[in-house]
């Protein structure tokens, strides 16, 4: 077994693992109950899947064709920059527009905090109105 074969097998293993990871994240996308947990499956397992697949490709071209593919590395970089932003924005929008958490969820400190904020604002507004009334 020479060095080329070893690298070839390593690249193949990386790519197959990446493929399996995206399969798992697809299964997760179907199985999980609500938008919040689904976004975990959609954005997260797939970042590792993309990382492994592209790394496998990079390794293959580097070792066997002596070609350093900057494009593959840039692909990894940009997936890592954009995937978390997308996940964050999607579930923030979901929570802001009032999507309920699944029934199995345990606690929601954000909703509690939002409620407290709303109450404070309401109280403030009431106070202001009262002041205005007494002023007039």
């Amino acid at each position: 077994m020479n060095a080329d074969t070893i690298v070839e097998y390593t690249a193949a293993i990386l790519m197959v693992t990446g493929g399996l990871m995206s399969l798992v994240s697809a299964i997760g996308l179907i199985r999980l109950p609500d938008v919040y947990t689904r976004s975990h499956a959609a954005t997260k397992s797939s970042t590792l899947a993309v990382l492994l697949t592209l790394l496998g490709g990079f390794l293959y071209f580097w070792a066997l064709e002596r070609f350093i593919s900057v494009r593959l590395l840039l692909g990894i970089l940009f997936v890592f920059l954009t995937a978390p932003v997308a996940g964050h924005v999607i579930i923030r929008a979901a929570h802001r527009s009032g999507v309920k958490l699944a029934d199995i969820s345990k606690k929601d400190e954000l909703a509690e905090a939002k409620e407290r904020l709303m109450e404070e604002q309401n109280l403030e507004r009431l106070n202001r109105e009262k002041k205005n009334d007494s002023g007039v």
Partner: protein
Amino acid sequence: MNKFRGTGGTGATAAQFLLNLFIAFLWMLLLDEDKFRVTTFAAGFIVGIFIVFFMHRFFGTQFYLRRMFAIVKLMFIFISELVKSSWSVIGQILSPKLTIRPGIFRYDTVLESEGEVTTLSLLLTLTPGSVVMEVTEDGRGLYIHAMDIESSKQALIVQLKNFEKAIMEVTR
């Protein structure tokens, strides 16, 4: 340990870098090869890195590649966390019965600047099992949605602390 922090400005960094370049040139000239080879120069530069690293305390400044080492360390921490938490999330997804208890909790970070908090949330959102949902207006409190709040909240907080420490090494 940080007694000399602040004295090592850009001037000191440049001085250490120049010394390193000088060692690399010296190495190349002393080897006396018949033509210029990049590999020899690179080898000299690496030797220079070691010499400057062992000498930097005598300059009274911080080692000029310290930040780079910190970035490499942060990358390694991130990759190990990524693999660990991917493994646990795969286990949760593929278990025949969904036993997870998702939830949202608040975490107050010790990081200060916007860049630091952004890096922390980026790394945290990239690792499976946790998504940053909302950042409070002062930029200190993070609301984190965790895949399994009962069993993994403690592990998540340990992970957060790891990231915080590594990020602070890079930025401060």
